[in-house]
């Protein structure tokens, strides 16, 4: 006894045709034919409803279908064939329309799910075999060609490709991935060819975890929803009881039945969750995981933002910000020589210089002679030159003079937050490399946007020294900063703010910030490619590490909560209007059913606006350009 959606749609259409035919018959004054048609329509449309009601009763479960069945039997009993036909038809047709529109609000998630890879090309016994993704084991070697989907999380062992990671990070610009880089399941190879060793497969992949998180998030309820749930738990039996009372008092079966059907709390039950689903789905598509309705609600109330510095407001990866030369060498030439010398270095600053040279495409050989002076720098022989690269101590030790002009420049660079590295060739200082952890490009814009949207205070908490903290804070125009903080100090600070009545969000890039993230009202993690710890502890995860995603999520949460409130007020209003209408006799069974179904559709349509919500389209864009250029000029 399986009634599938398809069968139901046929029955609905048939009942609709029968109703139209009977009205035509009525016009032609064939009243008997009209009644036959209407009863026929009622019977057809009742089939799926009665079956569902019966199935539920058999399992001792209450259902809306049971209410409708009782009402229809009652209507047939008192000879209201028009009402019985129209009510059953509208019930089915309404469900059909709801399914169609609900599908749209769920479409963001569905699009994500559809991005899931289906098959993989695996090298087994030296041969390429195509297998379903479920059958790929950890450690297997997989081939992905141009246009193919990455089927697992893994590491590239051969080849190079530009990969679109939109499914994981929400970013549609392709990224170039080379040997030893990580690739993620669900991403698409735009061009190129890679061979990958599978590290996580099936349900363990980042992509599968994202989908699971979003699915779970869409179910988790806000306080409003929980209230509405409790409300409808009381409300539904209350309505049954009331309609019995109405019947006992008025002896009017018709009125009692109308009351019963019209009072079904459809829009009320669906209005709030549907906004949440659309909002969370929108976030997921833009690379922001908001873990549930409750979090949406709190997030929209946040007025104070706390940030960690390194890796959150800044990129967390030092970069060469300037190379200054003082003599015989061109900039490129000096970089090449110094980078070759630094090939022997284990220090992260040395590695940064090597990386800079590599990104310029220089071909470099490790120097034959070289020595690391721990904590200070290196000495090496490159192309017959004696090269010394390091800090002031090393240069002093080598008895190389730092003349006034160079010293002046070095101090100026340090004031700007750089670490300064001196490069001496054959006993003379030839250049200075400035290295700094730079502020994220989108930070000024994102912070300005969030301020416009209602953030009152932006504060930075960092373990770094006073000097660097001050620089970053000034550069971004933060309200406050606190330097040299240990993880427990950060937690204490978050607690204090909460006690003062602020709703606090804390954003950090991972494990050392985890306690503060957990303490804050809303914890945000930068999930660069989605590390497991950050995805699981935080309330909100920014998959592409973009602060603009933070800003998007903030305005999204406000829009979602606004949408939910609209729906709730509308639904409550409709129910009371309907009940009132029934009691004063101006709303009948069929028209009541119509208004009821229409109100359900309206709340769904309202929620659908959230799917396309994009804060970038709002008007603040232009003023922000000024703010951004100011920020960068400093």
């Amino acid at each position, binding site marked *: 006894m*399986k*009634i*599938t*959606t398809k069968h139901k749609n046929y029955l609905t259409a048939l009942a609709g045709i029968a109703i139209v035919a009977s009205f035509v018959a009525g016009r032609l004054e064939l009243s008997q034919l009209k009644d036959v048609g209407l009863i026929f329509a009622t019977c057809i449309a009742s089939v799926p409803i009665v*079956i*569902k009601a019966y*199935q*539920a009763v*058999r*399992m*001792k*479960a*209450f*259902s*809306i279908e049971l209410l409708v069945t009782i009402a229809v039997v009652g209507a047939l009993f008192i000879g209201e064939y028009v009402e019985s036909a129209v009510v059953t038809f509208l019930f089915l047709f309404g*469900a059909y329309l*709801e*399914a169609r529109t*609900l*599908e749209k609000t*769920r479409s963001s*998630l569905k699009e994500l799910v559809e991005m899931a890879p289906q098959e993989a090309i695996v090298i087994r016994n030296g041969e390429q075999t195509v297998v379903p993704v479920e059958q790929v084991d950890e450690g297997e070697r997989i081939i992905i060609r141009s246009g193919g989907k990455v089927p697992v999380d893994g590491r590239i062992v051969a080849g190079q490709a530009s990969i679109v990671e939109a499914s994981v990070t929400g970013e549609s610009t392709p990224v170039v991935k080379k040997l030893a880089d990580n690739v993620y399941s669900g991403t698409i190879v735009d061009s190129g060819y890679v061979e990958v060793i599978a590290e996580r497969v099936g*349900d363990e992949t980042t992509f599968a975890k994202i989908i699971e998180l979003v*699915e*779970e998030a*869409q*179910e988790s309820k806000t306080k409003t929803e929980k209230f509405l749930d409790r409300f409808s738990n009381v409300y539904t039996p209350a309505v049954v009881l009331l309609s019995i009372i109405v019947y006992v008092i008025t002896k009017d079966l018709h009125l009692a039945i109308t009351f019963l059907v019209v009072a079904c709390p459809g829009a009320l*039950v*669906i209005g709030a*969750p549907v906004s949440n*689903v659309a909002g969370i789905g929108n976030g997921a598509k833009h690379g922001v995981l908001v873990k549930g309705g409750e979090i949406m609600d709190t997030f929209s109330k946040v007025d104070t933002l706390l940030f960690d510095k390194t890796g959150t407001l800044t990129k967390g990866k030092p970069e060469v910000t300037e190379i200054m030369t003082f003599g015989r060498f061109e900039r490129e030439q000096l970089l090449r020589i110094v980078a070759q010398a630094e090939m022997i270095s284990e220090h992260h600053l040395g590695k940064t210089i090597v990386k800079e040279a590599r990104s310029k495409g220089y071909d470099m050989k490790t120097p034959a002679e070289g020595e690391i002076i721990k904590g200070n720098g290196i000495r090496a022989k490159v192309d017959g030159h004696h090269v010394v690269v390091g800090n002031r101590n090393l240069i002093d030790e080598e008895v190389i003079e730092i003349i006034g002009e160079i010293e002046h420049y070095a101090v100026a660079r340090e004031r700007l937050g750089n670490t300064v590295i001196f490069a001496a060739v054959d006993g003379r200082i030839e250049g200075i490399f400035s290295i700094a952890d730079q502020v994220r490009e989108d930070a000024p814009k994102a912070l300005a946007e969030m301020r416009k949207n209602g953030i009152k205070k932006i504060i930075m908490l960092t373990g770094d020294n006073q000097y660097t903290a001050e620089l970053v804070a000034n550069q971004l125009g933060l309200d406050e900063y606190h330097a040299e903080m240990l993880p427990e100090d950060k937690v204490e600070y978050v607690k204090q703010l909460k006690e003062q009545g602020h709703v606090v969000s804390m954003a950090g890039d991972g494990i050392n910030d985890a306690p503060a993230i957990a303490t804050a009202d809303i914890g945000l993690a930068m999930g660069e490619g989605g590390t497991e710890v950050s995805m699981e502890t935080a309330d909100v995860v920014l998959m592409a590490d973009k602060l603009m995603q933070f800003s998007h999520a903030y305005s999204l949460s406000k829009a979602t909560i606004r949408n939910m409130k609209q729906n709730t007020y509308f639904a409550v209003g409709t129910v009371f209007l309907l009940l009132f209408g029934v009691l004063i006799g101006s709303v009948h069974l069929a028209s009541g059913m119509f208004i009821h179904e229409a109100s359900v559709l309206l709340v769904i349509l309202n929620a659908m606006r959230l799917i396309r919500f994009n804060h970038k389209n709002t008007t603040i864009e232009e003023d922000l350009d000024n703010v951004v250029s100011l920020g960068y000029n400093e």
Partner: protein
Amino acid sequence: MTKAVFQLEALTCPSCIKKIESTLDKMDGIESAKVLFNASKVKVQFDEKRTTSSHIEQIIEKLGYPVLASKVS
């Protein structure tokens, strides 16, 4: 303890959630049952010694919800 996920046809009425959850919760051997309304999925934790995933599937279908796919892990 075994976990099974059943994919249903798109759910439309929120009252289905309670119907399915409360019916399954009453069954012997079922630790927890959760309906993901928006994903139209049912997640069930059950004791494989006392019931089977195909039996759970039958119950869901008997309630009037055709199961499109199931996955046991």
